[in-house]
């Protein structure tokens, strides 16, 4: 059984006479020690879903188990105790403006009844962990967005949680700060062997740190799997849209009305295939002439990932053979665009 299991989760918001079904039967299984991402467009119910996990929101139907504990069956007291072992970070940081960075990190420790002297030690450990030792005495108003989120992360980790819930943790940050915060989440995840559930509307976040991803639409999970698989072989329209956002810069050629002379081919290659001499092999074996329109190598989490857009010229016979050969390559996804 997975560490976090969500089954048939439904949530309907009722406002006077009108009501909206936000979650329409969500099933998810998240393994211990993985970073699991949920991506979806704005308003699709991602926040509602993540808030059900620590019961900030009460679902109408379904079950949630975390480490064999039936979350929806907990009494108020049990729930409070359980929440102490679940960290959460927020898009708007949600720090206490009346407390310093150190004071904010101390808060969950006070809640858990940790003795004063131990709190002091633990706070300085945590400040160091997030690289903010010199900001201990600063108030949130004196910190940048990235620094505030670092305090938020330290606060979420204070009681050594088993789960970290991230609700759009980087959406209020610029791209560079986003990367540094994601790196921090990934590094603490590894160090503490945390299970992380992260929701976002940005595929970039998923690609940078998640092991697996679920794509949400209309209050349902429409696609799910290891990030590389979903990314290289998107099945639904929404997922393709998300992937496009990342691929877009590689397709500008086409948008500008490029007229292909041969077969226009887009290759996505992952893992080991990235080190095969693809183009030269094509030239040698099939006597075709690939024109490289765009090439791009990136990483999905720790695996290299490449995209190659080529216009391949040659006799029809040679072209067919070349494409056939490409199709047979392992870890390579080919798309013929004309």
């Amino acid at each position, binding site marked *: 059984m997975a560490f976090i299991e969500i089954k048939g989760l439904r949530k309907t918001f009722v406002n006077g006479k009108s009501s909206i079904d936000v979650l329409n039967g969500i099933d998810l299984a998240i393994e211990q020690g993985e970073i699991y991402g949920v991506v979806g467009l704005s308003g699709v119910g991602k926040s509602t879903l993540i808030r059900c996990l620590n019961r*900030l929101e009460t679902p109408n139907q379904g079950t949630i188990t975390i480490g064999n504990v039936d979350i929806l069956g907990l009494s108020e007291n049990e729930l409070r105790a359980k929440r102490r072992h679940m960290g959460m970070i927020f898009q708007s940081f949600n720090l206490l403006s009346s407390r310093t960075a150190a004071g904010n990190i101390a*808060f969950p420790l006070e*809640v858990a009844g940790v003795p004063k002297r131990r709190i002091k030690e633990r706070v300085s450990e945590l400040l160091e962990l997030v690289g903010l030792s010199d900001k201990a005495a600063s108030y949130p108003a004196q910190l940048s967005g990235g620094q505030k989120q670092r305090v938020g992360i330290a606060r979420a980790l204070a009681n050594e949680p088993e789960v970290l*819930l991230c609700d759009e943790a980087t959406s209020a940050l610029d791209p560079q700060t986003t990367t540094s915060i994601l790196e921090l989440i990934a590094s603490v995840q590894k160090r503490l062997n945390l299970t992380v559930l992260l929701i976002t509307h940005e595929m970039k976040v998923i690609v940078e740190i998640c092991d697996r991803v679920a794509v949400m639409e209309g209050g349902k999970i429409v696609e799910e799997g290891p990030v590389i698989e979903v990314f290289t072989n998107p099945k639904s329209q929404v997922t393709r849209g998300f992937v496009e956002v990342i691929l877009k810069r590689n397709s500008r050629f086409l948008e500008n009305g490029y007229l292909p002379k041969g077969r226009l081919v887009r290759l996505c290659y992952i893992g080991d295939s990235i080190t095969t001499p693809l183009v030269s092999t094509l030239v040698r074996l099939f006597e075709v002439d690939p024109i490289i329109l765009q090439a791009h190598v990136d990483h999905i989490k720790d695996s290299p990932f490449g995209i190659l857009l080529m216009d391949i010229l040659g006799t029809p016979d040679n072209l067919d053979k070349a494409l056939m050969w490409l199709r047979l390559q392992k870890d390579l996804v080919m798309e013929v665009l004309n």
Partner: protein
Amino acid sequence: MLLSSQQLMMLKIASLETLYMVSVTTLLTTLVGIPLGILLVVTRKGHILENKWVYRIVGFFVNATRSVPFPIFIVFVIPLTRLIVGRSIGATAVIVPLTLAAFVFMARLTETCLLEVSPGVIEAAQSMGASSWRIIWRVLLPEALPGLIMAITITIITLISYSAMAGTVGGGGLGDLAIRYGYHRYQTDIMWATVILLIVVVQLVQSVGDGLVRKFTRR
């Protein structure tokens, strides 16, 4: 314009009476008004201790109390005043209607302050497993502290002016002195002295309040 020593003595006594009425009333008002304000916030829909009936009943009580004009209030609560302090005139007797009129005012001001506290911050505390009691003491009140200080400042100043009406039941104080001597007996010098003294006191209270608000504002 110089005041006679007798007039100075009257001023001194009146000042002490005002000080007495306002400080005791402020204390009682704060002690009752702030908890009531907290109740008005936390029992709201969607708040940490949502409770429709408590919210409605407390809200009705506060509105009802606030609808009665203060001079009428003084007369209206005479029986209660007798019951509590044993008589219905004098400075101590005035404290009863003053407190009753002011604590609901304080409750509404507190409510406004606490509603300013970001729901996200409250939610963060909940996500850490904090109890409602802890959220009230360690989140709502500290986060709203500057606003609460401002609310107490406004209440004190309002009480200073309300206490002037206390003269009608023999409460004394600065306002009463100004009315009796300045208005009814045309002793304008004492009236001016009282008015100037009141202006100075109000300014002083306001600047101490502003200073404290600045000191505790971290935004």
